[in-house]
């Protein structure tokens, strides 16, 4: 099975800027952006440990482009 391209997306209109993802990502994939929301620094460093997803209280971290598309309309 072909490995999927890594993908991480933060849905800003759901995010409440708790910054758990930034703080607890073991590989510093996410940082605080200039707009005050988390942003992805370097997706290649991500090991897909899923900690950011587990720790996101807002369900605002999305890992599949199709899901992003579905949710963006909401």
């Amino acid at each position, binding site marked *: 099975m072909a490995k*999927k391209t890594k993908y991480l997306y933060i849905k800003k209109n759901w995010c409440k800027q708790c910054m758990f993802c930034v703080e607890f990502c073991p590989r510093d994939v996410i940082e605080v952006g200039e707009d005050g929301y988390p942003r992805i620094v370097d997706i290649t460093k991500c090991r897909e440990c899923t900690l950011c997803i587990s720790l996101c209280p807002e369900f605002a971290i999305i890992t599949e482009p199709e899901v992003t598309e579905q949710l963006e309309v909401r």
Partner: protein
Amino acid sequence: MMQDIIHQYLRPSKKFPHVWCPGCGDGIVLSAIVRAIHSLGKSKNETVLVSGIGCSSRAPVYVDFPALHGTHGRALAFATGIKMANPELTVVVITGDGDGLAIGGNHFIHACRRNIDITAVVFNNSIYGMTGGQYSPTMKVNDYGATAPYGNIERPFDVCDLASAAGANFVARATAYHAIMLEKFIKMGIAKKGLSIIDVITPCPTLYSFYNKAGKNIDMMESIRDRTITIQKAEQLSDAEKEDKIVVGIFANRDFPEYTGIYSDLMERAKRSVKDEELL
């Protein structure tokens, strides 16, 4: 491969973001519950979420299961009716420390005693969030709250000790920070026949933090992380050393007979006696 499991379960007709404060652990616990249900392959139609009143009890409105947001403290009582009336259903109760152990304390111990096949997840943040930060039955002595301005003088319940003593088959504690462990315990709890209690230590970065100067949400999360020890580690510590610690792990995992199963056997016996009841 990462999976957007929670997104498969959000109610399509419900608006987001949800009601909880930034940095509240409740969303973390809810997504752990959903992943646990998902990993057990339970059908959405046949998994019922039941909650009481309070911050945590708002959880079921967001996820696409049949769900009942009940009255304050009564989640386990509603859930008992649902499970008894249809034992085929998987019933998960979402409750808080105030909801589940103060106003619902009686239902809590009796659900444990009956050992009915329900999994209750206690979102335990030691405070009443929705009503403005009053002390709860799990607040530590000397912590502060809106109704404990001189420090709390009441000793807290240990949710796990209480549930174990009252007879629940599966009792475990995790924290919102240890979300993977939490998911594992919830999964074990749902899979277990009988009553399962999962006590989840979760931060209230708004009111608990305000009254106790516990810092921002990340400070609270780090504090939970740093104070957490395992049961094995706790056994080596003195009571004084354990004072401030959060002991996580499985406190009870046993196989007392489960209530609806016993009742089904009773029904078989009763049906056999119908012939005695024939009309004269």
